[in-house]
């Protein structure tokens, strides 16, 4: 089984995230970045499949220079090899362009064919659009089974469970297929120290747009279908109303709640 996992390098949600003043894109310079936590579930699921039988896990990321850290983390967890697509022209790409680049990278990583399984997280923790998996499946011509909370392989089929508000669906697809997974599907492992050491010897390929045969004019900020025209920091929360209890605290609380239409 040949599995490709697509992962993203995102700004650490714990840090103070912002936009780039110059072009209103996500600021990836001023903050610490890491492998998107939602993608750890995708890596873990791929590793479990590979460990249960035979298989090779390739991780692919598209992003600036530091984005190589996302695939390195996946290699430390146990993935076998990695691809980092990096090119100045990619800066500012929207989801459609990202899926175009990813599709070409996935095909090339699979030796100019299609892998048996492509796994992604359900969305990134920075953009949170959640559309790249579907777009990527479309570009690869693969069936897409998204938001999997459970994944089972039998023969040349994959079946997943998708939990909705009202019902849980079981969906089956033939392989090859693309599956996006939720944070309910497994408990991602930490890299082990030995894994970290081993990862230093694992291959990481760096590809440019030219390597993938993608026309630079189709990606990047200028080709994006939508643009952020301005941004403003959310104003700091104002202090709430303080009520000193002079025996009538209960009444004042009720008055406040009813004024806010909670009562």
């Amino acid at each position, binding site marked *: 089984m040949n599995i490709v996992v697509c992962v993203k390098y995102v700004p650490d949600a714990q840090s103070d995230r912002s936009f780039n003043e110059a072009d209103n894109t996500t600021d990836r310079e001023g903050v610490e970045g890491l492998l998107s936590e939602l993608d750890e579930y995708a890596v873990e699921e791929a590793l479990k499949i590979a460990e249960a039988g035979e298989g090779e896990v390739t991780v692919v990321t598209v992003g600036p220079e530091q984005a190589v850290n996302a695939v390195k983390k996946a290699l430390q967890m146990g993935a076998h090899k990695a691809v980092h697509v990096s090119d100045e022209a990619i800066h500012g790409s929207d989801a459609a362009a990202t899926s175009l680049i990813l599709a070409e990278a996935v095909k090339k990583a699979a030796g100019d064919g299609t892998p048996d399984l492509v796994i992604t997280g359900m969305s990134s923790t920075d953009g949170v659009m959640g559309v790249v998996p579907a777009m990527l499946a479309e570009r690869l011509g693969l069936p897409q089974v998204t938001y999997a909370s459970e994944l089972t392989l039998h023969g040349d089929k994959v079946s997943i469970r998708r939990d909705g508000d009202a019902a849980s669906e079981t969906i089956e697809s033939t392989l090859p297929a693309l599956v996006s997974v939720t944070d309910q599907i497994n408990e991602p*492992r*930490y*890299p*082990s*120290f*030995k*894994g*970290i*050491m081993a990862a230093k010897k694992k291959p990481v390929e760096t590809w440019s747009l030219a390597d993938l045969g993608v026309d630079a004019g189709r990606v990047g900020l200028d080709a994006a279908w939508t643009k952020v025209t301005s941004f403003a920091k959310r104003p700091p929360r104002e202090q709430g109303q303080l009520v000193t209890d002079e025996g009538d605290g209960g009444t004042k609380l009720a008055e406040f709640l009813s004024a806010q239409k909670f009562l």
Partner: protein
Amino acid sequence: MPVTRLMPTSDGDDLIALTREICSKELRPRVDDAERAAAEGESFPTEVFRTLGQAGLLSLPHPEEFGGGGQPYEVYLQVVEEIASAWMSVAVGVSVHSLTAYPVTTFGTDEQRAALLPGMLSGDQLGAYCLSEPLAGSDVGSMTTRANRDGDGTAYAIKGRKAWISHAGHADYYTTFARTSDDAGRGISCFIVPAGSDAMTFGAPEKKMGLHCDTVREVIFDGVPVDGANRIGDEGQGMAIALSALDAGRLGIASAATGLAQSALDVAAAYAKERQQFGRAIASNQGLAFLVADMEAAVSGARAAYLYAARLKDAGRPFSKEAAVAKLLATDAAMKVTTDAIQVLGGAGYTADFPVERMFREAKVTQIFEGTNQIQRLVISRHVLR
């Protein structure tokens, strides 16, 4: 703010990053509840040790060929410090566990290393270190637990009572010191005793003032059989093994105490910048700011002391005096810094709503175990005045 660390290798940097990730995701969210639960009844962080074991953090200073991390003490101890800044009981557990394998790595034969270490260092097992007895604490040489040769003379049966044993009842094996002759100092031998014998029973967990997740109780040996192949070193070499192991173990406690002090300082510094009195942050009073400065100096001094001893050890040089100095300085620093952290927080610091009162209780024991600080002074003065 994370401590600035100058690691000797990039592997060391990676290890610190891994440790910090596990601390923030697995240890810090659990420590308060777990310590409270363990104070009320028995509770042991088995899962946390498993996570650390799988990540390879339970056997860092031991040889790679038997499953260890092959790391110098300079790196291993900084990992212990990071763990202690998140959860002291767990850091002490990591240090004690490392100590339990030390006799085998350092004094075992090739056969014993090959037979015992892969299990001990696998990360799945936890060890206990049985040295102290109810009547033999600082005075190790007065121990009475005996290992008598059994049957045809190839095996032993251990009989006696060990006190204050960390991990007792949870450990997979017990590194045990017992008397094989009446000679006070030269009559002691070292054994690796697997858990599971019916002849080994445990006392009730001690009700301690802190460090609750380090379960401590008596281990009662009532003729526990041990294979002759599990005796480490010669008969009578036990005291030398125990003392050598303690030199290394003391550095574990010194680094853990440093981490504990660092986290108390972090809480205090953050609070001092937030808390307003007289219309300004309390940190803007020099009288308080200088208290914080002294805390920082104490923590930095403790770190420098244990790292210096570690570098000597890693270079194969004598480090016994320096280890005792580090243990003394770091644990006294932990006591002082946690006390002052409560002072910085005022009344809030004295409540269980903030972690500094717990850290203060945890700091106290570091001045007592792995040789009390009086014993450290004994070791230091003997070196200096020899």
